[in-house]
Structure formats: C-alpha cells, structure tokens
C-alpha cells in the first residue's frame, strides 16, 4: 500500500480540477451550523472538518425518490437505468461501512440492478474523522476507522492530506491531482496515530458489550419491558429511519405525469417506525403497537440484518438517530446497555 500526500491547497486544486473537467462531485458543505452532502461547486465550499452530516450519503446511493420504470398509464413499462458517474467526497468510515452493507444486501439473492448500476458509477473518497459529533459512538461499534471498501481514503494530518488510493476508480481520479508526493514515514505515522486515536475516541455513548455480542443479546430480549417503556414516548415519526445510514426499507409508488398519460414507478424511502409500514389491504396492521415497531428497528440492527450479511451489525454508531429523535428515545446504546444489565428479564 502506497500512501501519497497533497498539501491542502493542492487538494483544493485537485477537487477544482475534477469540477473543471465536468466531473460531478458531491461533497460535505455547511448548512447553517450543521453539515450536509451536496453538489459541490468549488473546493472552497468543501468542509472535510465536519462532524457529521444531517443525512447520511445514503441519499446518493439509494435516493429518497428514485425512478425504477417509465410507463404509459395502463400500458407497458421500461426500466430506467442510466446512471452518470459521481464522486462522493468526504464519506466518514462509519458511513462507508453502511454503504458497503447495502452493497451486499442489494446484490445478494435477487440482484438489484437499479442500486448496483448506480453504485458502480460512484467513486468514494472517504475521509477519517477530524471532529467527533456530539452523539457519535462509532468506536463502540468498531466502525471508527476503515482499512478497505473505499476508492480513496484521505486523512487530514494538519497541513496536508494523506491519500490512500485503493482501486482502479481511485487511480483514475488521481490524473486530476497535481503535485502528488510520496508520504514521508513521519506523515504515515501521524496518520496511524489519528486512526489509532479515533478507534477509541469516537465514543460519546459507550456500549457495554462487544459489538459482536449483540445478536446473542437480542435472543433473550424480545419480551423485555424496555420496548414498551421507550415506545410509550414514540411519535412514530420515522426520523430515526430517515437519518439512519443503514436503513434501506423502501416503498414503491406510481407517479403519473401532468399529461395523465405517462408516469414513473418510483422507489422511495420508507420507515418501519411509521404506523402503516406493515399494514395490508383490508387495513390489518401486523405491527400495530408502537412498541413492536420500536423493537423491530433495534432487532433489525442487531439481529435480523446481521443474519443476512455475515454477522455485521447494522448500526454503525453515527448517532444521527439520537440527534433526530424528538422524544429522545432512539439511542440504541441506551437500549442495548439496559438489556445487558437486565439480561435475565427478557
């Protein structure tokens, strides 16, 4: 593995060169006093010192609303599958792990071309966390640093960025970089020190067990009172689902155009906390109680999804649900720790 180095000024020039060449680059920019992934117009707007974005980069991998088919009303349909290349710049390790999990889920079993074709057009430039967000617990979830899964990984070492270019797609982008130098061993040591620190420092909420223990913890937690207690305050607003980088449940709806003759079948985000998520025709709701929906989300994160992706826990510790939850009940760590402490009650 060779690590190279660009000064911060040179890195800005690299980003601007991509933009000047007409590449579509989505990066992290400020939105009032918070941050978001958005179309980048110039490197000047880029904020790689961000703590966490409001929504995860999921919205570029699995958009909020995405056409699957174009149709004539009452007639035939064609697939919509033209996806343009995109550079996704500034993805934190925990969000990268979430995207990698979705890659696995959408390609296993029935292969989802809409997701996968779009995904293959995306080049991910990940970046190590510089500033922990107020609710991050990635260290607890062992998602604070990554050693693979990115096309390029950049690390802010103060006056410069170190770049670890891992894939062909990553190398292809490096043609836009001028002044690339090999990193000195002192620089690489700095990078190691930053990553080593992040391994334990991104931990505002501390999980009371090894992350790999969670599926077993859940086995005896189904009837624990914590589900009722927490869900009593739940508004069923689905905010925890919407901001979650690993939530990928979706609805499919037909949207008819103004001409009333043509339209699109779209996939749009859905959330298992929403009241009618499991309702069938005839109005029977299979998950009618708030507590059953609240429980389902945390079981999905710690047990159901892991069973599909080789044991990886589908909570990456970004802490967004904790920040987004109006009722302040969404913190997974609080629930898992409570289950740990009262293991006999379940």
């Amino acid at each position, binding site marked *: 593995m060779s690590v190279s180095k660009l000064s911060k000024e040179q890195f800005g020039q690299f980003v601007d060169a991509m933009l000047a060449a007409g590449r579509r680059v989505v990066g992290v920019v400020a939105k009032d006093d918070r941050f978001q992934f958005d179309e980048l117009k110039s490197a000047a707007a880029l904020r790689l010192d961000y703590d966490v974005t409001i929504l995860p980069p999921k919205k570029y991998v699995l958009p909020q609303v995405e056409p699957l*088919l174009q149709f004539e009303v009452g007639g035939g349909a064609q697939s919509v599958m033209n996806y343009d290349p995109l550079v996704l710049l500034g993805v934190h390790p925990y969000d990268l792990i979430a995207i990698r999990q979705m890659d696995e889920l959408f390609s296993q*079993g029935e292969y989802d071309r809409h997701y*996968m074709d779009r995904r*293959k057009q995306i080049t991910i430039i990940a970046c190590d966390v510089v500033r922990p967000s107020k609710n991050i617990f990635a260290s607890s979830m062992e998602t604070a640093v990554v050693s693979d899964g990115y096309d390029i990984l950049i690390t802010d070492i103060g006056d410069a960025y170190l770049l670890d270019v891992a894939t062909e797609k990553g190398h292809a982008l490096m043609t836009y970089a001028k002044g690339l130098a090999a990193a000195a061993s002192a620089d690489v040591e700095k990078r190691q020190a930053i990553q080593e620190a992040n391994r334990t420092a991104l931990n505002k909420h501390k999980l009371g067990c090894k992350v790999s223990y969670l599926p077993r913890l859940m086995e005896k937690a189904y009837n624990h009172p914590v589900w009722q207690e927490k869900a009593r305050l739940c508004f069923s607003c689905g905010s925890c689902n919407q901001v979650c980088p690993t939530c990928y449940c*979706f*609805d*499919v709806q037909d949207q008819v155009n103004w001409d009333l003759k043509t339209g699109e079948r779209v996939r749009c985000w*859905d959330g298992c906390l929403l009241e009618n998520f499991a309702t069938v*025709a005839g109005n029977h709701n299979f998950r009618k109680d708030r507590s059953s929906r609240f429980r389902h989300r945390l079981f999905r994160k710690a047990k159901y999804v892991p069973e599909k992706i080789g044991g990886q826990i589908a909570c990456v510790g970004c802490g967004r649900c904790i920040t987004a939850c109006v009722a302040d009940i969404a913190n997974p760590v609080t629930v898992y720790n409570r289950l740990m402490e009262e293991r006999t009650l379940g």
Partner: protein
Amino acid sequence: MCDCCSEHKDIYLPEMATITKRRMLNGTELFMHLEMDSGKELEHAPGQFVELSIAGLGEAPISISSSPTQKGFELVVRNVGSLTRAIHKLEVGQKIGVRGPFGSLYPIEQAKGKDLVFICGGIGLVPQRSFIRYVLDNRKDYGKVTVLVGTKCYDMRLFREELALWLERKDMILMETIDEAHDCWNGNVGVVTTLIPKVESDLPKSVVLVCGPPVMYKFVLMALAEAEVPADNIYVNLERRMKCGVGKCGHCQINGLYVCQDGPVFRWSDLAIVPEAI
C-alpha cells in the same frame, strides 16, 4: 461487487399478461385466468404469488390460485383499493403487468403418500386451491384428501360450482361451514375449527395446510395442537405486505424472515421462535 451487471434482468420490470377469462366469484372477488404474452408458462409452484400491476395505479401481491399442471394461471382479486378496483374493471383481452412467481411452495414432495387436510378460511381458499388442484391432478401420489372450507357468510362463498364438483368426487372429502346461518344454507354453521373433529384421517399422521385471515390461525393451531398434530406436519400460508417480492423492501418481514422469500408457505415448526408470525 459483481461486474456482469448487464446480464442481470431488472427485477422490478413487469411482463405483460392477457386476461383470457374473468368472472365474479361473489360480490367482491374477481376470478381471472391469464396467459403470459411471452407465450411461456409462469412456471410457478403451488403456494407462490405474483406481483400484479397496472401502470399508474401500482402493484400488489396476489396469490396464484391455479395448479402448474394446467395452462395459463388463475388469480382471485378482492376489490379493496384503488388498484384492485381498476383490476375489476378489466375485460377479457386486456393486459396486466405481472412479476414473479415469488416465494416458497407447498410441501409437494414431503406430503407424498400422506393424508392431506386443507383448512381454508374465507379468501384463504384461493392460494390453497393451487395445491388442492395440483393434488387432484396427481391424485395417486397422495393419501386421503380432506378440504375444510369456512366462510363468514353465505354470500361470500368462493368457487361454488367447483366446490359442488369436489363434493361429488369419491377421491376427496369436502366439508363446508359458514359462520352465520342463512335461509339458503342447509349445511354446517360455525367457524372452521368446528369441522376439525369431523376429519376422518388420522390427524397426527396427516399433513395439515392452513390458510385464512390473520385472526383464524391462532384458533386453528390451538385446535390442531389439541388434536395432537405435530408442528412438523402443519404448514401455514401467511399474508403480509410483500411490496417488492424480492427480499429487499422490508415490508413483509416477520421478525427476521421475509415472507416474500422465506414464505408465504411456512412449516409451523419453523416459526416456533418467530413471535410475530401469528
């Protein structure tokens, strides 16, 4: 990631099928016989379902009611929402979008040589019919066949002519009941569980197949437990919101299981630690 994406088909793209027969079974249930425009058979197995759609109105999972031993396939659609209302307006010769078949199958092989007892509540007869007809078309492969049909009221009864034919057959036993008494009805009155003690087959050794509205399962399963039918011999066909049909969208989950892939037909013993199932 796989690099052969162009070889994968679009799992969300329906194929077109043409309605070749249609008739109302009662006030709300439309029966349709369809053939794929490709000229190919659907190649489903009893128990599976399709996603049926009209572009502009949406898509819904619908059980296949016919056996793969016959040409084309049959569906029954209840008029219950905007999509199904539009489906009810379609005429013979009109087209409809179809994806699938999806899901698990009835225990075609495991049940061979054994007595079969079908317990059908209301519209639950529709998916069960796919296996009943399969069994009747392969009659010598199976033991005694008993079909119990319970319907809420007289007017809601489905497949009346076909049930009359089944009643005549010497190689099967049909027992029917309605929940509410009716002037035109001389048969059994009561819920479907009241027919279970009348089954002549040795229940604990039979394969029992159950399908009906959500409320029915608990009571039928209690009655079967009382009749000492082992959970290994019971199969349930469960309804959920199978939105995508391909194990992605999450709507049909029963705990960790996806009904669209792991179901809709489940062996009851496999659901022992799946509390959301019933």
